[in-house]
């Protein structure tokens, strides 16, 4: 699958190969390789757990479960975020994503995202990265 671009709401600076600092306004997310399969599988298992939790809640009141909904249409970002939260392991998901993004996220489409630069990103942008990556590469 082609790479996905995520525009940042709050930019930050990173060092490019020319020895200067440039503004990072977007992150390019690339498809995971076998090297990071373990991390992707861990994230997927947490999300599946969240899906099960949501399914049990919905089945109690007779509404259709998210599992049924997902068969009909692609999951939207909000649902993915709710699934992550429902897993009860959001902190572990974040830790796994921080590890994963070192290999699959490129600042400005040219340089691997590093932990210090992730620390500078806004919480909102980081959540957006997690959701977009899940939508395109983990659950797709």
């Amino acid at each position, binding site marked *: 699958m082609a790479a996905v671009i995520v525009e940042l709401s709050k930019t930050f*600076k990173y*060092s490019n*190969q*020319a*020895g*200067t*600092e440039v503004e990072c306004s977007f992150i390019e997310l690339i498809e995971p390789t076998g090297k990071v399969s373990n991390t992707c599988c861990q994230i997927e298992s947490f999300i599946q757990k969240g899906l099960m939790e949501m399914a049990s809640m919905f089945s109690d009141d007779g509404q259709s479960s998210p599992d049924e909904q997902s068969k009909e249409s692609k999951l939207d970002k909000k649902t993915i975020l709710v699934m992550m939260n429902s897993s009860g392991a959001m902190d572990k998901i974040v830790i796994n994503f921080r590890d994963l993004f070192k290999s699959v996220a490129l600042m400005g489409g040219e340089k691997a995202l*590093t932990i*210090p*630069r992730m620390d500078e990103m806004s919480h909102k942008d980081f959540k957006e990265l997690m959701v977009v990556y899940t939508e395109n590469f983990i659950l797709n």
Partner: protein
Amino acid sequence: METELILVDASIEVDDQTVLIEGNSVVLIEGTGEASVKMASMGGTLIPIVSEDLSTKVGMVKFEMPATVNSINVSREFRAKGPERVVRVSGTDAGGNRLGRTLMHAIMTNDPDKEIKNEGKISIEFSGSQLVVS
């Protein structure tokens, strides 16, 4: 009068990667350069003549790393990568005052002794453009 605090736990990043550093080892040279002043006379009046030495406008960041195997390899990479490195120094004191300086177009200029012994250290020196506030 408020108490002023000395920053003792600055962080150093080379090319966006945080570096392991020894405490109390970070030294910055802003690279504002040296200037000399000589007096000349005109009609018996003394006039100061100021001259800036552009060749001394070199920013520097110096620090020491504990001589772990990882640090020995990392410092070798710094040297091997040659010029065009970016070194950031940042920190916040207990009073919330922030220090931020960036050294651009930097190169590791020294070839340090890598002490393989108890409490061994590696001295690192990066030189480049004048430091900029970040």
